[in-house]
């Protein structure tokens, strides 16, 4: 290796780290403000204009806190776990482009690289759970393992649909192929699958099962504090950013669609801004979901993944393959995908698998009860659990 290459790599890594850190800081501010808006609050208002400096204050607070080590902890595993979660999250960004020429290393197998690296972060969560020697952490770590591994399949399959359309795994080419029409027009089902599985990969509401505050009290991260906890935090937000960025790259045309009509440095800069704007729109969508939905239970999550998302992801691939193989016009794919998607929402909304009664509370008037004392109206029959 020549000296120039080493310097290039070091500068690249540093630049990427700074870029991602800034993005994470911005994201935490956006998250707080979005949630505050949903919840009729102001959010952070004190540090800086409308709390814009709050993320920096938070970071300083976290870094200055004491790093605790539980006495029963498995030291090496405990200290390595944050790194094992952070590194994959960081490495993903090596090949994610911000604009046509703003990318550290544009790999020919970019998508393949992304799916293979993203799986690694599970290990870090399990390590954190085991190393903490805490029962809640163990539970959380195992939950994370089960959840992330089962949602990896629909996640990859949804990506595959896009790869088949573009006939490439190179992210730059995938974006270039969306100059006139974004993939979301042909792959609405794929977008649904990718986004849902992505949320589960992130452990974001409604799939925030492995660090559920009210159940396992933070899960694998329960014992961590200070800088090590903030590394987990950083990784989690980088992952959120990654999923949002991938959603934009794969389905919403990245910096294309509409293309920025400039060349050279100005064009690149505007492309990056345009791409980041789209990404933040998706991120706000993720936060919106977080402010709206309750959490699923682990078995419901699993049955949703295996009985709903995995079959659907295969359907998506078969549909795409059939349309591509026989050379049908692309709008056929759109319509069939939308029909399937409509069917999915119908199934979710109607819950035909269970005899779920929605309104089971009746109101009796006081005068009708004053005549008799205790009236038994039911309560003996069984309501089946509302799974899926």
């Amino acid at each position, binding site marked *: 290796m020549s000296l120039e290459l080493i310097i290039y790599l070091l500068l690249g890594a540093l630049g990427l780290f700074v870029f991602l850190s800034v993005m994470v800081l911005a994201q935490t501010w956006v998250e707080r403000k979005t949630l505050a808006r949903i919840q*009729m609050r102001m959010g952070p208002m004190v540090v800086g204009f409308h709390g814009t400096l709050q993320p920096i204050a938070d970071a300083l607070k976290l870094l200055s806190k004491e790093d605790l080590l539980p006495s029963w902890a498995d030291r090496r595993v405990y200290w390595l776990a944050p790194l094992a979660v952070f590194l994959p999250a960081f490495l993903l960004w090596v090949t994610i482009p911000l604009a046509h020429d703003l990318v550290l290393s544009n790999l020919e197998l970019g998508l393949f690289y992304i799916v293979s690296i993203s799986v690694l972060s599970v290990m870090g969560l399990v390590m954190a759970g085991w190393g903490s020697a805490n*029962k809640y952490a163990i*539970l959380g770590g195992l939950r994370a393992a089960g959840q992330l591994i089962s949602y990896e399949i629909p996640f990859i399959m949804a990506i595959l649909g896009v790869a088949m359309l573009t006939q490439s795994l190179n992210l730059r080419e995938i974006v270039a192929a969306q100059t006139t029409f974004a993939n979301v027009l042909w792959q609405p089902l794929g977008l649904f699958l990718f986004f849902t599985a992505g949320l589960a990969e992130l452990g974001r*509401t409604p799939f925030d099962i492995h660090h559920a505050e009210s*159940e396992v009290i933070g899960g694998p991260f329960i014992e961590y504090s200070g800088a090590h906890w903030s590394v987990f935090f950083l990784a989690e937000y980088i992952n959120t950013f990654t999923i949002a960025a991938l959603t934009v790259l794969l389905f919403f045309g990245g910096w294309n669609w509409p293309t920025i009509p400039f060349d050279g440095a100005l064009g690149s800069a505007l492309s990056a801004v345009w791409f980041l704007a789209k990404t933040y729109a998706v991120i706000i969508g993720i936060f919106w979901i977080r402010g*709206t939905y309750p959490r699923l239970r682990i078995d419901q999550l699993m049955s949703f993944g295996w009985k709903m998302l995995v079959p659907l992801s295969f359907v998506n691939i078969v549909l795409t393959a059939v349309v591509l193989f026989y050379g049908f016009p692309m709008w056929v794919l759109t319509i069939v995908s939308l029909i399937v998607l409509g069917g999915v929402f119908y199934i979710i909304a109607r*819950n035909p698998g269970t005899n779920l009664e929605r309104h*089971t509370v009746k109101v009796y008037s006081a005068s009708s009860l004053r005549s008799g004392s205790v009236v038994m109206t039911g*309560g003996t029959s069984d309501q089946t659990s509302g799974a899926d």
Partner: protein
Amino acid sequence: MQIQEQNSTGNAIDLMINMGPQHPSTHGVFRIVIWVDGERIVKAVPHIGYLHRGSEKLCEGELYSQIITLFDRMDYVGNLNSELVFVLAVEKLMSLEVPDRANYIRVILCELNRIASHMLFYGVYGLDVGAMTPVLYGFRERERIQALFENVTGARMMHNYFRVGGVKEELPDDFAARMKELVEDLKKGIDECDSLLSQNEMFLARTKGIGQISGEDAIDFGVSGPMLRASGVAEDIRVTEPYSIYDRFEFGIPVGKYGDCWDRYYVRVEEMRQSILIIEQAMAQMESGPIMADIRRIARPPKGEVYVRTESPRGDLGVFLVSDGSDKPYRVKVRAPSFANLQALQHLLRDSYIADAVVILGSIDIILGEVDR
């Protein structure tokens, strides 16, 4: 890891988890030790007593008027309902006739307190199932009620407003106007809260069919209040054994069908609407007049014993009061609804998941101050 017991198949090992007293969703300092097989609960042993302050014993050393403050601190979310039961017991012992206006004031404030308590339940229940937004909407409504309480009683929570024979003070001048505004706001607020969570698909999936208890079982466990009504037993002491002036109002008793978590949740939401009805009727019927019966400052009930039960936001709140004729009671025994409702927990938790344990415990709506006293 501590290994405690073998599970039914004998080859896997159960994990013992100590939930509480510092777990965020045990609603205070409740502690439950659960043995889990994977995510499924094999056995659950609840422990209480972490908030025991000896309130009942303390009552024996205080004047009757001072005990009201102790009752404030038992059910610290439904303070006024808690005060009411003690005041009613002393009045019954003294065969005291309370002025009408005082009765109306009591009923209005108690029903407001019921709404405030249910709103707290609503918000916290949202947190229990993992939705972070409802709590802020629930607290918005509760805050409105507490602002009114502050205006009337001078305190947001520990009011010390009811007296043996009446209430402490006349209502403020702008009470009727504020009340009208509050009722309108609450009506809108309750509907908004209802639409926010009740029919959410994931909320239904988390609460429907979870933690079922049949009507017979509920009665056997001594369960009362919204939890009993959710199991399909239409029993509300305000109606079946009216106290104070509750027989003058027409309102509804929401009754569930399956006794699952969703029914327990929704019975409370519906109850808030019915409380609004009571408040409106009471505001219309209330007339001016004295607010305090003509009694001596230091109450000395005659020798004897009395039991009074009322419908607190959590259920059948009763007081057994023994007087030896002095200015202090000989014995005060409180029948706390949370305590009785909590007895059903082990029954409810059978074969459920860890995540359900939180949802079930939340749906009982316990107040540890009342459980441990």
